[in-house]
């Protein structure tokens, strides 16, 4: 029997609606983005410019740009160095809970998955934070699954308050909130918010987000704006590359970030580039598979579109890839990562969302950064 799914455009109870033109603007431009029509000449034109137009940005994400990856990389290094010098920020994530009410077909935390669920008590959290702080880190990212029941805003607020005692920078990567809830977490000590749209294609979005609050496409889309309305200092964007058409999704991600930056010029902008890995030895070479080459292309395009934006490289990628993209395009790297619930000081209380490919400790990553002639930066923020 076919299950009747809810309308992904319909808000669920409790979700505040804000007035914003950005969603329509992004979707309209993505609709008009036809990368098959882009020529090598368009790419060359884009590479000559200091400030990319939307068309230039689209050119750099197109298949026509593939032979120009080296040129893009050379330009990206210059931009990255100009804006960030050789500084590389270090941070680590802490998963405080993995309960989830969403049914997202690609995710390890999917509510239908029979995984070990758990959440940290405040005492457990403190032990984790202490253990992380001992590694020298000054920036932390607090994560949860989406469950207002098990990990409500007050619970997250308590975690943020505690984290702010140990860390100069506290970011949150949690489920989307209303602006007043973001304001509350800002008051608790969080300053940066990451929300990833996963895919900007509405059809695909509803095919993979079957139920739960995450099914509501526009509420998720407007998260960054609500976070800034709530007083947050910076917001991060990302598509789960490979879920839909990665070129279109990356195009949308860049536009989303640009429009937010234009409307909130003070906001610090960041990008993350998670991807679904293609199956190895898959004979059908799917043009939308995101191999390392495509991943790098997207990262480079983000850098050239917004030279001032922070770009984070995740432990989902192998050490060799991460080591080469820092300084060239990425400005932030995680280290000493555990993706289960807790696990820094005590045994994990819940299972992982995904597997990591780079298990190196903070001191190992620190040394790698130095070996590459770059400067590890632990602290780059003052909470005022």
């Amino acid at each position, binding site marked *: 029997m076919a299950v009747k799914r809810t309308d992904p455009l319909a808000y669920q109870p409790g979700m505040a609606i804000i007035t914003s033109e950005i969603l329509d603007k992004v979707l309209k431009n993505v609709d008009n983005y036809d990368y098959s029509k882009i020529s090598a000449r368009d790419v060359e034109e884009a590479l000559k410019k200091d400030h990319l137009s939307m068309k230039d940005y689209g050119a750099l994400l197109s298949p026509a740009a593939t032979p120009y990856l080296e040129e893009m990389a050379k330009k990206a290094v*210059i931009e990255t*160095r*100009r*804006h*960030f*010098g*050789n*500084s590389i920020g270090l941070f680590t994530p802490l998963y405080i809970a993995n309960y989830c009410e969403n049914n997202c077909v690609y995710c390890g935390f999917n509510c239908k998955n029979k995984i070990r669920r758990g959440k940290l008590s405040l005492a457990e959290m403190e032990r984790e934070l202490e253990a992380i702080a001992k590694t*020298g880190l*000054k920036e932390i990212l607090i994560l949860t699954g989406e469950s207002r029941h098990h990990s409500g805003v007050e619970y997250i607020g308590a975690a943020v308050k505690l984290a702010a005692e140990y860390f*100069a920078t506290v970011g949150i990567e949690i489920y989307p909130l209303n602006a007043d809830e973001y304001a509350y977490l800002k008051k608790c000590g969080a300053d940066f918010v990451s929300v990833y749209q996963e895919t900007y294609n509405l059809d695909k979005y509803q095919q993979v987000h079957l139920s739960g609050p995450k099914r509501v496409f526009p509420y998720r889309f407007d998260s960054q704006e609500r976070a800034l309305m709530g007083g947050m200092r910076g917001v991060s964007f990302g598509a789960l590359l490979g879920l839909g058409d990665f070129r279109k999704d990356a195009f949308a991600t860049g536009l989303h970030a640009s429009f937010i*930056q234009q409307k909130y*010029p*003070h*906001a*610090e*902008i960041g990008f993350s580039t998670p991807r679904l890995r293609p199956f190895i030895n898959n004979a059908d070479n799917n043009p939308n598979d995101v191999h390392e080459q495509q991943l790098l292309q997207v990262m480079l395009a983000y850098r050239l579109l*917004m030279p*001032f934006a922070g770009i984070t490289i995740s432990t989902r990628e192998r050490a060799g890839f991460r080591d080469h993209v820092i300084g060239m395009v990425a400005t932030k790297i995680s280290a000493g990562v555990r993706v289960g619930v807790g696990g820094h000081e005590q045994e994990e209380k819940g299972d992982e969302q995904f597997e990591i490919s780079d298990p190196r400790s903070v001191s190992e990553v*620190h040394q790698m950064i*130095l070996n590459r*002639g*770059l*400067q*590890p*930066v*632990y*602290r*780059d*923020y*003052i909470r*005022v």
Partner: protein
Amino acid sequence: MTDQLVIGGHPFNSRFILGSGKFSLEIVKAVVENGGAEIVTLALRRANQGGEENILDYIPPNVTLLPNTSGARTAEEAVKIARLAREINCGNFIKVEVIKDSKYLFPDNYETIKATEILARDGFVVMPYMYPDLNVARDLVSAGAAAVMPLASPIGSNKGLSTRDFIEILVNEIPVPIIVDAGIGRPSQACEAMEMGVDAVMCNTAVATAKNIPLMARAFGQAIESGRNAYLAGLGRVLNQAEASSPLTGFLED
């Protein structure tokens, strides 16, 4: 004759102010020494007291620290950051940076004036980073600025003196030292600014993105000194056409 740069009553022999946030900490000392800088700026938000890679541990003790308020979006935040700098013994100098634009990093002149007024009253030697506007520069001086730091071009752009004509007006009109900050990309541009009569040049990206950073610091130090000497010597007039070497009015007798 000694030619010193005097900021808030403090004399300096070097007119090269070095930014420190874009290169490896282990070479800070070599860069300072090669460039002959006596003032080094640092973003207070980077100061990692008692922690890993604390920039304060790498700056030689004989230089004057010029902490900046980078990260501040309002006067109030800049004031808080300045006071924190004093608390952790970074001294009394403060470079006020109030920036509300993450793309171009342009200073907010209005908030900068407010912060300058509060901090000058509080006993700081205030050096505000500003967009070169004569009225704003006058207000900054009235607010107690010990120097003003107009931008030459957007930060990190290495484009040189895009705002040349406006900085020149400040040089002519403003009684406190004018220190060109941001956008200087080459030693020749630093030299050009000094020839024009600015009192000092601050550089960060242009040095930090060089292949040989200490050597580039030396080049900047020399260019700044050379430009200063040219200014003091008095530049000859530069004409667009040839000039008769015998004076036209040489026939006059009484």
